[in-house]
Structures are given as C-alpha cells and as structure tokens.
C-alpha cells in the first residue's frame, strides 16, 4: 500500500519478527509506542499491507501483527540508530513482559 510518509531521504531500516504468541495486542502496542516515544526520531513500522507511525497506539495496534509476522522499522532523526537498536531488542526480548 502506498503511504504518505514513505519519503524520508535519509533513514535507517531493519526488520523484526513478532515472537509473542498472541501477536501485537493492545498492551504490547502500548509498550512499543512507549519505547518509540523515548526517541526524537520519526519512526514508522510497516507490515506487508500498511505503514504506520510507531508512536501511535491505534496505528500500531491496527497493524494486527500476528505471531511470526515480519515488520519493517524505519527511523529518521538524530537518534535513529539508537531507536532502531532499541526497538529490535524489544522484539527479540518478546517485549520483556509475559504474554497474557
């Protein structure tokens, strides 16, 4: 799907995989947004179908990312590398909270 904020001139990108069995439900979306909001950079996260702002809870929840789905993270800004590394780790650690 075409997207309006797909036009960063400089950015870092990385893919992550959803390792939480119940997928990105609302609580995890909240955790992800909280993590992304710690950074100044503009961060987007995309599934095959759509790209959303990583700082928007409804956006991230709306991805409906299920277990095993791969997502593309793009960040642009002063702290883009730190942001990407942090978010990648968050996914790898299964958001460091017990899946309920």
């Amino acid at each position, binding site marked *: 799907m075409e997207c*309006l904020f797909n036009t960063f001139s400089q950015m870092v990108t990385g893919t992550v995989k959803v390792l939480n069995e119940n997928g990105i439900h609302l609580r995890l979306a909240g955790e992800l947004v909280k993590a992304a*909001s710690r950074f100044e950079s503009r961060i987007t996260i995309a599934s095959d179908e759509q790209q*959303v*702002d990583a700082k*928007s809870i409804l956006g991230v929840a709306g991805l409906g990312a299920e277990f095993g789905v791969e997502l593309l993270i793009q960040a642009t800004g002063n702290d883009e590398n730190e942001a990407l590394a942090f978010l990648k780790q968050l996914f790898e650690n299964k958001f460091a909270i017990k899946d309920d």
Partner: protein
Amino acid sequence: MGNEYSTEEFYKETYEEFDFDILTTGLTSKVPITVPDIHRPAFALTGFMENYLYQRIQIIGETELLYLRSLSPKQQKEAIQRLFTKPLPCIIITKGLEVPNDLISLAEEHAVPVIRTPLSTTPFIHSLTGHLETVFAPRATTHGSLVDVYGVGLLFMGKSGIGKSEIALDLVERGHRLVADDVVEITRHGDVLIGRGQEHLRHFMEIRGLGIINVMDVFGIRAGRIQKRIEVVVQLEVWDPKRDWDRLGLDEHYMEILGVNVRQLIIPVYPGKNITVISEAIALNHMLKVYGIDAAKRLDKQLVDMMESDKKTRRYLKYDTE
C-alpha cells in the same frame, strides 16, 4: 490493495452481487486482474488481433456466442483458440448463456477461469466497472485525525503528541463528527479524496492520560461517521516566534495527496491556544470560499479602492487654492 487483484479475490468479493457460478474446475489464473477496465473480445474471435486487450477481464455476451454458433465446429474451435493466444485473467459469460464445450476445455488447458452471471450484459458491465474502479482507486494511509466540522472534512496532521486527538475530541464534544483518529485511509475518486478509518479501529481514540475510548459509546451515534471527503488539511506545528507564519491568508497553500491538491493551513500550537474554535472558523471560512466569498481578498480590495478614491480627492485639491 496494490494493483494486483487475483481472480479468486474478485470472485470472493462479488459472487453474491453478480450471482456467479464457476464453469471451469478452478479459479486459479496465471495472471491477476491489473486494470479496472473490461474488454469484449468479439474482434479477437473473428481473427482481428490488433488491439486485443487481453490484460482485461473478458466479457462474452450474446453477440460473441451467436457469432461462435454461426461457425462450423472446426472454425469455432479456431476462433476460441485465438482468445487463448495471450494469458487472460478470466472470462465472464453474461445472461446465463450456454457456452461451447471447446471454450471450457481450452480455458482449462490454459488455466483461465470462466465464470457466468445471469445478469444482462450492459447492466452487468456497469456494476462490474463500478466495483473495479473502487478496487483500483489510488489509496494511501496517513497519520492524522479526520473530523467532519460543519460538513467540511478537516484532516489534522502533525507530529505525534501535538494534540490531534485532543482537538478531535474537543470538536466531537462541540457536536462535530469524528471519521478517523490516528490512522486515516484515503482513496481517490476522480479529484475527490475520501478518508475513512480502518474498519476494526473505527471511532476508537487514544487520549493521552486517559487511554482508549470509543467516541460512539461516549457521545452516541451522532458523534461519528464512516467516511468523509477531505477538504482542508490542518497542519499543526509547534509555535516558533522566529518562523514566518501566514498572517493574511491571501495566498493559498496546497498539499498534494495522491496527486490531488488539497488546501493546507499551517496552524501554530502553544499552551492555552484554542484550536477547536479556530478549526470551526477554518471550516466556515472554507465554505465561504466555496461560495466565492474571500475575506482577505475583500479587505485587500477595500484598501485599494479607498486609496484610489483618496488619491482622486487629493489630486483635485492639490491646485485648488481658493
């Protein structure tokens, strides 16, 4: 949806409306549907292969079948074979007509699905084109809030945390209607942009400090609507005293969305500023402009006229030394 639409997907979405039945064993095609247009392959059947628009859905109606029936069995098979010299997404038979066996067997051989509708050709083509145009309409998703304010679709955009949702909530509280918060799906129909929320997120909002609410539950049925034409983009930016803010409104700014220019206003935000009232004024002013009334231009004209008439008076009095 991108610009690939498989025949299976097409069938699944339309078989109820068009009462389709499948004449081939499967619906799998080698090529997807890629364009919203249709084609009637009468000329291809007769052997005139120039401009054979094989990428399109092929519609076979009474004329094509009458022609086929007028041929000898050998000629008929040759005519049908011409259709399959190119990869086709699918063939649709109208009016529930019976088709030659060769058409089905050759379609099977070339993996082209054949489906049939009981509808007459012309009304069927009208409905089908309508459906395909919606499917292939240019679309995009954006981050923002879309609110119907006095019947004008205002799309609030800006960095996360700038207060788009809070403004939308405030507007809903004042009687306006929320279309989508946070994620807005936009489709283009001609020169009109239609925005709507994602189906499973519809009318949910996230308000910082409060959490998730559903405006329809809180404010009732009047608080939401499903889709709305986007007429003005209200870009919210953090107030910066050094920046050149538009103070006049004489020049119009536009933002391009899916190739359509939408009026854009950049509104500075700072604590204590009432964006809601400004938003209502934006909507009303936009309606006035639609009706041809432009306050900034009128003031400008009044000033010019006044100076012009002053000049005349001054010229008259200049050498008047009575």
